[in-house]
């Protein structure tokens, strides 16, 4: 943490836990008898509970979106650049909720939690969860917090899919959906990347079919590889070139398999660092949730007919060099919304950072987000008066 907390930071925050005893039947058919969700909140809920904003995290995110947990924290939450007093998701006006999704490893019920039936950790027995299941559990968290309607539900990538699902599943429970660098379903190529990530985990001898906790191992090689692959796809060719070029570790080639180029060192470091903070079974689950998401499937693959139900207004944002969730994928959602006659605005942000751009405070991106959400917040106060 910096010595002085910046005035636009939410400061020191503490996660909270909500326990749910009502069974949750999942899309896969299994039922979670009880579960807990860990979450953080920033800002103050207003008297009529109309100023809540839900943040939905992506593949490797968690509930810690903004601020610091303690003075020793080196880094703030994963979306600190966008959440705080005066920032686009302005905690002077909004009550922001960020949770860790079911199946995650940040403190919500997931593979590393104890299965109360067996008394052992769930590990790979944890049922497959879907975006729909997450949205259902998020709605229960909203009930628990006394929030009937969200002013906005915001998410990037897999988080954007949750915001989209909210608009269809609970059309009366949100005023606006902000869907960033997302897609109405994964492309074949995206599913293929996910499968390579999963295979690299599953083929790690330390994985033990997901029972590595029982076997007192960690499939660090497999999970690290999965993350390395992910990182390549989150960056654009240009961004990688700019960042590392062909910069070498030594002055001359070593003609061996040790690190020659800086990019190799970066990937190895990222892979390894990730294994210290993320659980392999959770990673497998999150990639499956991505693969399965396809809200139009039950509707003859007609996304626009699926979105007819939505009542909120939409903001979609994409980034020019994002090839994992390209602008064309966001435009599929935009066009389906146009066809369904919905209120939608769309901005395609010029950015060199690829898919990662959605986590980076690019000025135009932040400005679009702030402008949209300021209007959402102003319309709340108008309704109140």
């Amino acid at each position, binding site marked *: 943490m910096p010595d002085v907390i910046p005035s636009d930071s939410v400061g020191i925050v503490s996660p909270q836990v909500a326990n749910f005893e009502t069974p949750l039947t999942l899309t896969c058919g299994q039922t979670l008898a009880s579960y807990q969700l860990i979450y953080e909140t920033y800002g103050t809920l207003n008297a009529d509970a109309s100023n809540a904003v839900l943040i939905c995290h992506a593949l490797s995110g968690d509930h810690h979106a903004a601020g610091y947990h303690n003075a020793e924290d080196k880094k703030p939450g994963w979306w600190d650049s966008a959440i705080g007093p005066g920032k686009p998701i302005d905690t002077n006006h909004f009550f922001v909720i960020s949770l860790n999704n079911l199946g995650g490893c940040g403190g919500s019920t997931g593979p590393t939690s104890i299965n109360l039936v067996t008394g052992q950790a769930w590990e790979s027995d944890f049922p497959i969860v879907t975006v729909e299941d997450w949205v259902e559990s998020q709605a229960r968290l909203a009930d628990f917090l006394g929030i009937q309607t969200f002013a906005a539900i915001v998410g990037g990538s897999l988080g954007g899919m949750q915001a989209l699902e909210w608009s269809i599943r609970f059309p009366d429970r949100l005023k606006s959906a902000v869907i960033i660098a997302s897609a109405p379903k994964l492309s074949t190529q995206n599913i293929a990347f996910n499968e390579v990530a999963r295979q690299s985990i599953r083929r790690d001898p330390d994985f033990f079919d997901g029972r590595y906790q029982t076997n007192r191992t960690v499939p660090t090689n497999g999970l690290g590889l999965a993350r390395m692959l992910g990182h390549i796809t989150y960056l654009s060719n240009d961004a990688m070139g700019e960042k590392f070029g062909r910069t070498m570790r030594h002055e001359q080639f070593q003609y061996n398999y040790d690190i020659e180029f800086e990019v190799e060192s970066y990937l190895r470091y990222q892979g390894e660092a990730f294994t210290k903070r993320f659980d392999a079974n959770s990673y497998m689950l999150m990639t499956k949730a991505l693969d399965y998401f396809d809200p139009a499937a039950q509707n003859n693959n007609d996304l626009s007919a699926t979105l007819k139900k939505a009542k909120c207004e939409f903001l979609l944002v994409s980034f020019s060099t994002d090839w994992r969730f390209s602008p064309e994928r966001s435009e599929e959602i935009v066009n389906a919304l146009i066809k369904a006659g919905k209120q*939608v605005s769309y901005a395609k942000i010029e950015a060199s950072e690829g898919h990662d751009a959605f986590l980076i405070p690019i000025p135009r991106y932040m400005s679009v987000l702030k402008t949209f959400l300021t209007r959402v917040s102003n319309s709340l106060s108008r309704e109140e008066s």
Partner: protein
Amino acid sequence: MRSDLEIIEDWIQPNSRILDLACGPGELFHHLMINKNISGYGLEINADDLNTCIEKGIPVLEQNIDEGLLNFEDQTFDLVLMAHALQQFRRPDLLIDEMLRIGKECIITFPNFGHWRNRLHLGLKGRMPVSEYLPYNWYDTPNIHFFTFQDFERLCREKNIKVLRWAAIDGQYKNHWWIRSMPNLFSETAIFHITR
């Protein structure tokens, strides 16, 4: 409001669903939202204008019109509007076709290059006109097609496009009788309301 925008407002039915191409900062769209309860979208590629539209609550889409409008289905808007922009696109003729495919009617405004001052400038000075109204040099102008009131009328005839009504105004946005009687000579801005 400028008087060309007032004229357009008078022509628009309340509650219309409108696609406003190259809507800029959304001045007209916003005015029509308030006064005519219209819905629809603006299209714009300028980042600042896009933000201004979002600020005003105009549903606005970042889309390059020159790359096509195929994401809009046939006859899904009551009106497709384009103010002061037709001269900036690659193929105005094909764009008009597209506009009439998407909308039941169109309103198009454009600078009339046949205005007497332009003719005088080119005729006497032998150089491309630069004025308060057309303030660019030939090499940096976004206006890549110059055409006149009559040119547009003629294109409509060739394409069997019906002109429902037209208006012609001068640089002060006035609509004098002499402009109405000789619009090709006296109008600086031409406004056409067309349909198939």
